Every structure is written in C-alpha cells, then in structure tokens.
C-alpha cells in the first residue's frame, strides 16, 4: 500500500531516508503520550546522522518508529511519513515489514550486546538466521557459510571455528561485533545504532566506531547513530540532529552544531560538557525537567528552561527555521529565516 | 517481586492508609469475600444456624433429594444421606471443621516456618545448612505418604491432620523469610542501623517485617484453599477427621457407595470445597495484585 503521492525524493539530493512530520503516540491508561510530535529528519547514503538528546527526548522512539517496532500494546504512528528508498514505510503492512524491510533494508543495533544475543543458541544459528529469513540463501550449509563471511567482515578471528560457540563464550567487544554482523548480514541500506557504545569500555568504543565507519565505507550504508554522548557523536557523525521532548530542535553539519550552536538547548547541552583546562568549581547543567509528553505544553517545549525565553515562546510552537545550508533551528530567535519544508 | 518498604516505619503495610485506599479501589472480589464470610459465620455459629443436628439419624427419611428436586422438600434443603442425616447441616458442620483446620495450620506453619526461616537466615552457616537440609528432607517425602506413615502409628484425628499439614507447608514460609533475611543482611542500611545502636530485634521489626508481611499474607490466603483440599483428601482416605465429626472429605467417602442413586451426596460437599477454594484463590490473587503493584503490569 504505497503512499498516494509520488515518493518524496527530490531530484537534487537522493535522500536514502526522509522522515516528515512523524507523529508517534503511545496510548496509556491515563491518556496518550506524544512520544514524537512532528519529527523531520533526512539521511543520505554513506552518511552518518547523529541523534542526540537526553533520556525521553524521543531518540530511541525515532529508531523504533522507522522499524515500526513500537511498544505494544498502545504504540502507533498517528501521522507523517517515513520514506526509505522511495517507499513510505508507514503504509507497509506488518508481514511485509518483517520479510522485506527489517534486517534486510534497515537494521538496528542496540545498546547491550550481552542481552541482545540469545544465550541458548549458537552464534552461527543467530547470525545465519537473517540470511534464511530473507531468502538470500536456502540451505543451512549456505547460511553457515554466509555467517562465516559476515563474521569475518566484522573482524571476528577464525570465525569458522567459533560458529558453534555460545554468546557467553565471547568478550563484550566481540559480542558487539557479532550483533553488528547480524545487523549488516543482508547488506541493509540503513543502519540504526542505538547507543552502541554505552555498554563498552573506552578502548572498545573506539574499535566499534572504527568498525562502523569501515562498514559504511565498504557498503555505502546510511547510519543513524543515537547517542547521548556528544564526544562519540562528534567523532562519528557527518550531521547531527538534536532532539528534545519529541521534537528535533536543531539539525546541521557536525561542525556547525559544535562551533555555532543555534538553539538555546543545544548551547546549554554543549556548555554542560566538562572540558579539560576549564577552571570551574561546579558543572553547569540545565535547570528544570523536560515536560511531560502526556500533556505536552502549548508553545515551545523548552521554554520553561530557556534563558532566552520570550512571551511568544510560551504560546506558539516554533517551526524549524532554516538558517544556512543544512542548518536549521526550531526557535523563535531565528525567525525570519525561511521554514524548512 | 517485592516492593521495598524500609526506613518508613514498622507498621505492616496492610494497615497503612495508602494501601487501604488502593485495596478498596481495585475490583474487589465481592463474591469471594462473601463466600469466605459465610464460611466464617458457619464456623462460629454453626450449631445454631444448622436446621438439624448433623448427626441426627432419621431412618424414615433416607435419601431425600435436594429441595429443588421433585421429591425434595424445604425441610431438607440439600437432601439427606443414607442415614437420614440432613446434608445442609452437615455441610455447615464441615465448614466449621475446615475453617478450624485451616486456621490452626496457617498459624502454626506460618509461625513455625517463619521462625525457622528467621533463624536460618540470621545465623547462617551450619545452622542454616542443617535447617535447609531439613527442609529438603521434608520435601522429599510426598505429604500424603507422610500422612500415611503417621496414620500407621497414631490414630487419625484432628490433631494428626493438623500436624501433617503443618509439616507439609512450613517450608514455604521458611524459605520466604530466610531469603528476605539473607538479602537484608547484605544491605548497607542495616549495617548503618547496627552502627547506630539499633538492636537486632528493632532491625528485624522495622526492616524485615514490612517487606515480608505482604508475601506472607498473600501466601496464607492462597493456602486456605490448598489446606482445605488436603484435609479433604486425608479425610476421604480415612486418615483425617473421624466420625462423629463431620468433614466434607468424609462425606464424599461415605457417598461413594451410593453414587448410583443419590448423586447429590457425591456432588454437594465437593461443590462446597470448590467454592471455598475458588474464593480463597480469588481473594489471594486480588491481595497479591494490589499489594505488589509491579505485578499488575502483566
């Protein structure tokens, strides 16, 4: 069931993924949580987009929405479009999602490699699985061979001999590679990495990032890197989208975001990162709490905590204003710039 | 499975206002509570409520079917048995026995079990090992088999029934209390309390009791049904309550020979057992769901 309009892919920049006005809701006993309230994102081929924000900002929910794996019961997409490779995923039925898309054209790596692997099945079984589900191979023997190949690609040493081992026989870093192998097995077009480094030590983090970059170079996969760690985002991403309370408040090239953050929230976020050489007695943090998404406030969601708050901010929701090439900010301070379509 | 209630005070949670409100707000199982209430009334006021003496023979009136049947009458609401005894009165008398047994058993097994669990957890080491082996041994003999062995030497009676069932169920309480004590021992705030001079008794009362009280209460309620079924089984075999006392299980045993022409004798006492069990299970589940909010999510 395709979107009635023609695919939203503008001829100048062939976007791999274009999310427009995504509204994801979760029905709970006390009402409806507006987990995502009009999210706009784009990812090009061979590009890494970082989504940063605090807990509850909607970063993970965005990833889940793309895969249409919202928490059940209660989760649903109320409006908007998610166009991947020219197809609007919002309209794709569940069976097709499982067979054609998940694990095949779009994959997800999540935070904890230990719990992402089934402890009672060998990694050969688990890594070989996706090949069989999506019909890329048709026999167990072929699946095993394919598994060996992909494990080699993620640099697991001597994969042939480790195929029948179980997850607990691998170290943390290796397990994360195995998870990566499962995700890239069928050469997806888009890879969503949800806090892939949070559970790892620093040295292994570096390896993981290297690995992802390598995979991107080899296969041209687009990567969405969800993280709360600005440092990781800086080293890995080409562009960054900053999310707050279910919205994208600022997005742009990495350089622009770090050196010229436009939105007050981004500025506060960056300012709160302790830097070497600073002489300060206290860490600066952003006072207050994110608003409840059960009854989202009228107006700008960051208004309550914003140092630059104006009267307009409390009543009207700012749209995303485009500032210069690829850099947009959803803040009334930047009014006067054309809207992002 | 536990929600921790710790430094807040030693009142058992069931008495605290917030919990009461929650209890009353959750679909209260009125039907079950009524059944249990009736049971208790029967137990207390049994003799006065029953229209007939449960043991009164009336050979002119044998095998009368229940009132709603063609040949029945309202004089004998649920009919009579092979000796003309009124079934309704006997069921009430049986209720009394069931409730008494359940009460004794739960209090004794709960008390003994909790105490043993306390000691095992508190002292640890050899004491713990020995007591836990004791529990293992108890669990390796099926309770009915144990009852049989006892019956060979002691004449079956109310007392033996209580003893057997207590021996069967104490381990449940012991394990719960023991594991709670063990986890308490690991907690920092207990060490702190000790440093601050609190006596062991105080620590136990303020920290152990609230956490454990919920689970024990739920367990006890759920066990009412199980105990009654067990007692019925024992009495049915002849190893439990003896004549002239009345027990539902005993009534079923008597009824076996008359199945072909007096279906109510074999059905009605069982229905009584079933309703009691059902009520205790529903109330127990309700208590469990309200006292531990985390479980509700499932």
């Amino acid at each position: 069931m395709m979107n009635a309009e023609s695919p939203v892919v503008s001829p100048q920049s062939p976007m791999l993924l274009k999310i427009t006005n995504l509204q994801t809701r979760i029905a709970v006993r006390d009402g409806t949580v507006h987990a995502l309230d009009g999210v706009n994102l784009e990812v090009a081929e061979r590009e890494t987009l970082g989504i940063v924000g605090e807990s509850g900002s909607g970063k993970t929910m965005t990833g889940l929405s793309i895969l249409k794996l919202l928490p059940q019961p209660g989760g649903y997409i109320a409006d908007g479009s998610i166009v991947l490779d020219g197809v609007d995923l919002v309209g794709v039925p569940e069976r097709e999602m499982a067979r054609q898309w998940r694990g095949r054209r779009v994959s997800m790596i999540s935070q904890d490699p230990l719990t992402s692997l089934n402890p009672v099945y060998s990694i050969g079984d688990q890594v070989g699985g996706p090949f069989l589900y999506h019909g890329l191979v048709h026999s167990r023997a072929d699946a095993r061979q394919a598994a060996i190949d992909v494990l080699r690609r993620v640099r697991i040493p001597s994969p042939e001999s480790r195929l029948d081992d179980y997850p607990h026989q691998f170290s943390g870093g290796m397990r994360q590679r195995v998870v990566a192998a499962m995700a890239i097995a069928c050469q997806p077009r888009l890879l969503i990495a949800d806090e892939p480094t949070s559970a790892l030590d620093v040295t292994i983090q570096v390896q993981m990032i290297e690995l992802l970059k390598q995979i991107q170079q080899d296969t041209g996969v687009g990567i969405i890197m969800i993280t709360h760690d600005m440092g990781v985002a800086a080293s890995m991403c080409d562009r960054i989208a900053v999310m707050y309370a279910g919205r994208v408040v600022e997005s742009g090239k990495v350089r622009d975001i770090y050196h010229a953050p436009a939105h007050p929230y981004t500025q506060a976020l960056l300012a709160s990162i302790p830097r070497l050489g600073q002489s300060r007695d206290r860490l600066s943090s952003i006072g207050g709490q994110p608003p409840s998404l059960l009854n989202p406030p009228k107006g700008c969601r960051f208004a309550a905590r914003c140092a630059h708050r104006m009267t307009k901010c409390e009543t009207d929701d700012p749209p995303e204003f485009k500032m210069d090439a690829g850099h947009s900010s959803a803040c009334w301070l930047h009014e006067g710039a054309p809207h992002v379509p | 499975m536990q929600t921790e209630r710790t430094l807040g005070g030693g009142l058992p949670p069931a008495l605290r206002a917030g919990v009461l409100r929650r209890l009353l707000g959750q679909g209260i199982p009125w039907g079950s509570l009524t059944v249990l209430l009736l049971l208790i009334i029967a137990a207390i006021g049994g003799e006065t409520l029953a229209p007939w003496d449960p043991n009164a023979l009336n050979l002119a009136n044998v095998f009368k079917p229940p009132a709603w049947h063609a040949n029945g009458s309202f004089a004998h609401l649920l009919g009579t048995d092979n000796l003309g005894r009124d079934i309704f009165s006997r069921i009430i008398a049986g209720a009394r026995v069931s409730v008494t047994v359940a009460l004794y058993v739960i209090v004794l097994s709960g008390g003994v079990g909790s105490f043993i669990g306390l000691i095992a957890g508190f002292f640890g080491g050899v004491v713990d090992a020995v007591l836990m082996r004791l529990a293992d041994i108890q669990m390796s003999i099926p309770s009915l088999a144990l009852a049989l062995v006892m019956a060979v030497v002691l004449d079956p009676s109310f007392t033996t029934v209580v003893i057997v069932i207590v021996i069967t169920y104490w381990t449940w309480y012991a394990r719960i209390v023991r594991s709670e004590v063990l986890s308490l021992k690991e907690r920092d705030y207990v060490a702190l309390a000790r440093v601050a001079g609190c006596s062991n008794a105080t620590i136990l009362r303020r920290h152990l009791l609230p956490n454990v009280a919920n689970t024990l209460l739920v367990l006890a309620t759920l066990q009412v049904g199980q105990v009654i079924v067990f007692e019925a089984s024992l009495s049915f075999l002849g190893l439990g309550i003896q004549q002239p006392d009345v027990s539902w299980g005993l009534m079923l045993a008597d009824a076996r020979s008359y199945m072909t022409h007096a279906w109510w004798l074999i059905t009605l006492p069982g229905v009584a057992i079933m309703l009691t069990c059902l009520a205790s299970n529903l109330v127990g589940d309700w208590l469990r769901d309200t006292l531990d909010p985390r479980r509700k999510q499932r």
Partner: protein
Amino acid sequence: MIRFMLRRIGLGGVSIVGASIVIFVISRLTGDPIVLLLPVDAPPAVIEEMRRTMGLDLPLWRQYLIFAQHAILGDFGNSYRWQTPALDLVLQRLPATILLACAGLLFSISLAVPLGILSAVYRGSWIDTFGKGFAMLGQSMPGFWVGLLMILVFSVHLGWLPAFGHGTAKHLVMPAIALGWYPVAAQTRIVRSAMLDVLDSDYIRMGRSLGTPEWLLVCKYAFRNAAIPLVTMLGVYFAAMLGGAFVVEVVFAWPGLGRTVVEAVFARDFPVVQAGVLLTSVLFVTANLLVDLSYGVIDPRIRHAD
C-alpha cells in the same frame, strides 16, 4: 559441570537418608510392634523373647542402622499380611503408578503449555482471561472429587468409561485426568510467566528487528529459553503426581503403589508401608535430581561453567 552433578547427587543422597530416618522414627513412635503381632494374653517371657529376636531391645539408633543396612539391600522384611517380601510387593505395583503419574503429567502439560503460551502471546486479551479463569477453576476442584464426578457422569450415567480396574487405555483416561487436573492452574501460570519474561527480552526484540518471522520467534527462540523453568516444573510436578496418585488410585481402584500402601496402613502392615513410602521418596528425589542435571543439557551456560 561434574562438580555440580556430584554435589547434586550428594544432596539427593542426604535427602533420601533423612527421609528414611524420618520414616523409621515415626513408625517406631508408638513403641511396640510386638503387641500387634502377638496375641493379647501372651506371657511376658514370650514377649521378651520376641523382642530380642526382632532386635527391638537395642537402642533406637542401632535399630535404625540395622534397618538401613537391610533397606539398602532391599530387605524390608515380610509383609505381615502375606508372608512375601515387602519390597517385592511394592515393586510389583510400581509400574502401574508410574504409568499413571506419567499419564497425569502428560494430560496436565498438554493443557497448561498451550494455554500458557497463548496467554502470554495474547496477553491481556480474552484468551488470556479465559485461560486464567479455566485454570483457576481447575485449581479449586480437588482431584479425587473430579474423579468421583467423572465416574458419576461417564460410568454410572453414560456408561462410556469403566469405573475401575486397569488394562486398557480406556481405564487410564479418567484416572489420568483426575490426577493431572489440579496442577494445571499452577503450571499454566508458570508457562505464561516464563514466556512473558522471555518475550520481553532484548534478544527477542533483536530477533524481531532482524525480521525473524513471529512464529519462529515464539516457537523456537522464545520457547527454548522459557523451557528452562518449565523443565523444573516438570520434575516438580511429576513428583507431585506420585503423591497425588495415592488418592486417585483409591478412587479408581488402580492397582498401583499408592493403593497398596493405603491398604497396608489400615492393616497396620509396617514393612509394606515403610517400603512403599521410602520407595516413593527415592523416586521423588531422583526425579528432582534428574531435573537439576538436565539443566546442563538445556542451558549451555551451565555446561561450560564449573
């Protein structure tokens, strides 16, 4: 792994020894079996003589050791009623009880496993509620009463199934149902809970995000993980079936171990009671032991740990 197995076997042994002590002590509780064996007016000298021959004048612990010695060799003395070795009598009846226990277990899990899985997969729906309600009803009806009711309906009124005896599958149906009826509720809860735990886990979610078909997720990946607590359940409930069999055998006159022991109790036939109960305990402990040991097979983590 070996250490784990040895330790478990050791603990099992301790339990059996303990059980034997308990059984022995209880049966000696009321003093003299002599009075049951000899006529009431037997002269004291004869009583003394008998006591000495039977070794009943020795201190209790020595009596126990003698008992244990004999027991290990399978000698429980002769039945008081029939002068045949008690153990043989009991062993003859054992297969019938095991058959019944297995049939009962089969019946209960054939209800509990599907109900539990469906309840978990469709949690919150009417299927879930129905499953829970059905199971709860089952738990409120004592097995022996269910058996009696079935006899009333299917034997007395409808004449479809035989009320007692054994030999054909028809004879097994009602006793198996009566036996397996009661635990269905608890088993359903366990299955449901185990499945829910697993279905919520990260690795299942990972599998789903990779496009694994849902049925494969539930039946292969989730179930294998849920199976671990289920196997414990099997062992525990098989043991429970052994205990419950006693009553069911009486109801249906099933020629098994349970009925024999019950009859022996009323006849004050000590050796048979001792042999029967101890044998049941040994089975009990062995069943639990096998369950623990099977963990090593199902859960690879235990296999490699030590």
